[in-house]
């Protein structure tokens, strides 16, 4: 481990005040020895930089998938005092409410035999993916306002889903505080043609099988059984969210002098939560987050129809387990030294993992805590977990969001050939469909840390409990 960092628990490390100048609180992160070997010093610096922000409460935190990003490290979590703290797009990222949803089906692997290719092609034809993809939906500018305020509900009211879907989304698919006035004409222009599109990079729609049930009781509550075919959607707020982040980052950057905020990194640009600039960012970010929930709802709807086209199953037999955000800032109440306090929790590449009985999680899941979804990389397992009381105490109810990369995209492309990878995965029974093989190499399984190790650490550290392991059977990519 790097000099100056102290081990404070089996999986817990502390970055003391003074690691970088002007830290207001210490940093804490969660790692195993194995994962520590791939930790980048730049990520620890970014964690320490976050600790310099005004109004930060208790710790600057990072989950076991910590790695070097911009502004906050990826895997970074921080809470800011509602009264004295700041809000920062550097703690959310450009892809606002990038997130994941998991849906079960009544099918088994036997049902897929001989039909997997047909299913993959059906999914690929109805879900626009990749660079330059445009939606088949026609959305007016006023409808876009509704999307930004009512999120997934907009899609359900248009017949693209059911009321039950909404209950099974974080924030029920629409967070409060959305202010369409804080979304520029440019962001709207990008948002209109992209609703219902997957995007590129690590975004995907994957067919999976629940290979292993680790916690039978929680699995029963979540409604998943061994051998069940599921599908997972991973995407975000597309160009609308990227533009909202870009626009407000510039506004907040210019406002730093006005609020006399000194920063070690311009990407951490921020403003007091209760300032015109801070309120505008939050309102715009909430609009983008709601757009992302609508986006995943539309994609799920199209995928359900593709399943119905290939198999003799009903729409209602494909049950959404949950939808989680992993790039967002939200107001939440947490216990701070025995006192309930309202804070603005930033999660950048981190997942909310509220424990049993916590407010804001579906009543049907109250006994075990909220579902947490950890997507694997292409070709490796994804995981379903549940939130815990320990996460509420230690990490503002947060856990990891994914495997985290170990190879840069350029190195992955140099060492992996896209076509060969596709053929290798096909031999393993995993069908991959993308517009170009070149995009596959960047997302090769060896480019990522093993997802099982990241999941093991959050499980052992008590930040979430493993419920089920899902193996990929087929994937469509951007």
């Amino acid at each position, binding site marked *: 481990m790097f000099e100056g960092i102290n081990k404070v628990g089996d999986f817990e490390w502390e970055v003391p005040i003074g690691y970088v100048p002007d830290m207001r609180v210490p940093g804490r992160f969660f790692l195993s020895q194995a994962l520590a070997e791939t930790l980048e010093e730049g990520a620890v610096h970014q964690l320490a930089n976050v600790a310099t922000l005004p109004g930060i409460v208790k710790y600057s935190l990072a989950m076991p998938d910590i790695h070097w*990003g*911009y502004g906050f490290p990826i895997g970074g979590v921080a809470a800011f005092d509602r009264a004295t703290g700041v809000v920062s797009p550097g703690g959310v*990222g450009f892809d606002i409410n990038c997130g994941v949803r998991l849906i079960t089906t009544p099918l088994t692997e036997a049902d897929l035999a001989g039909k997997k290719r047909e299913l993959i092609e059906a999914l690929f034809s109805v879900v626009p993916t990749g660079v330059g993809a445009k939606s088949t939906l026609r959305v007016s500018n006023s409808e876009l306002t509704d999307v930004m305020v009512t999120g997934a509900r907009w899609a359900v009211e248009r017949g693209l889903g059911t009321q039950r879907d909404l209950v099974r989304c974080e924030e029920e698919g629409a967070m409060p505080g959305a202010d369409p006035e804080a979304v520029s004409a440019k962001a709207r222009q990008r948002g209109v043609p992209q609703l219902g599109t997957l995007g590129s*990079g690590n975004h995907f729609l994957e067919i999976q099988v629940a290979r292993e049930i680790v916690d039978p009781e929680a699995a029963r509550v979540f409604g998943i059984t061994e051998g069940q075919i599921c599908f997972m959607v991973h995407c975000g707020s597309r*160009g609308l969210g990227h533009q909202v982040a870009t626009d407000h980052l510039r506004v907040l*950057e210019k406002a730093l002098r006005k609020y006399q905020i000194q920063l070690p990194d311009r*990407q951490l640009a921020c403003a007091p939560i209760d300032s015109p600039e801070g309120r505008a960012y939050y309102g715009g970010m909430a609009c983008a987050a709601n757009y992302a929930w609508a986006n995943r709802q539309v994609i799920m709807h199209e995928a359900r129809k593709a399943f119905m086209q290939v198999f003799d199953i009903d729409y209602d037999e494909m049950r959404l387990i949950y939808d989680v955000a992993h790039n967002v800032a939200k107001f939440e109440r947490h216990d701070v030294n025995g006192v309930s306090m309202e804070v603005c929790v930033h999660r950048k590449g981190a997942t909310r993992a509220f424990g049993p009985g916590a407010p804001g999680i579906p009543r049907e899941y109250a006994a075990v805590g909220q579902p947490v979804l950890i997507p694997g990389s292409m070709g490796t397992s994804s995981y379903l977990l549940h939130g815990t009381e320990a996460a509420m105490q230690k990490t503002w109810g947060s856990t990891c969001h994914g495997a985290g*990369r170990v190879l*840069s995209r350029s190195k992955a492309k140099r060492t992996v050939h896209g076509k060969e990878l596709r053929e290798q995965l096909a031999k393993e029974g995993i069908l991959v469909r993308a517009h170009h093989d*070149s995009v596959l190499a960047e997302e090769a399984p060896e480019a990522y840390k093993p997802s099982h190790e990241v999941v093991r650490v959050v499980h052992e550290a008590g930040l979430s409990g493993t419920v089920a392991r899902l193996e990929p059977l087929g994937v469509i990519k951007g």
Partner: protein
Amino acid sequence: MSFEELEHTADVLMRIRGATLSELFSEAGRAMFHVMYGPCEDRGIVRQIALEAEDLESLLVDYLSELLFIADTENLVFCTFDVDLQGNQLSAVVRGEPFDPERHAGGTLIKGISYFGLEIVKEKDVYVVDIIFDI
């Protein structure tokens, strides 16, 4: 001059070099479109950009963000970037072609231009800047 991709696990880190600041900005645009779309030809599409910012780094972020916006909303891919800089004012003429899924869909979308570590420096006679593109 040139651009080269450096090691960065999460995003794309590009080192851009230019004999002049104008050339540095031109190369930055070329690097960004290289990541997103790969090969591109001038097929008569022309767009003009005029911007002003409080410092050169912000101007660079604004310029690249504007190019992203135009490419995304008009389905265009650019390959040549003629940039004129006067202090913190920029005017640019960019040329390219309509997006063609057959030739351009093999790249990776850029979500935003990061400020992290963004500093234009002069090394001997060459301007250099490292840019992290979020993808």
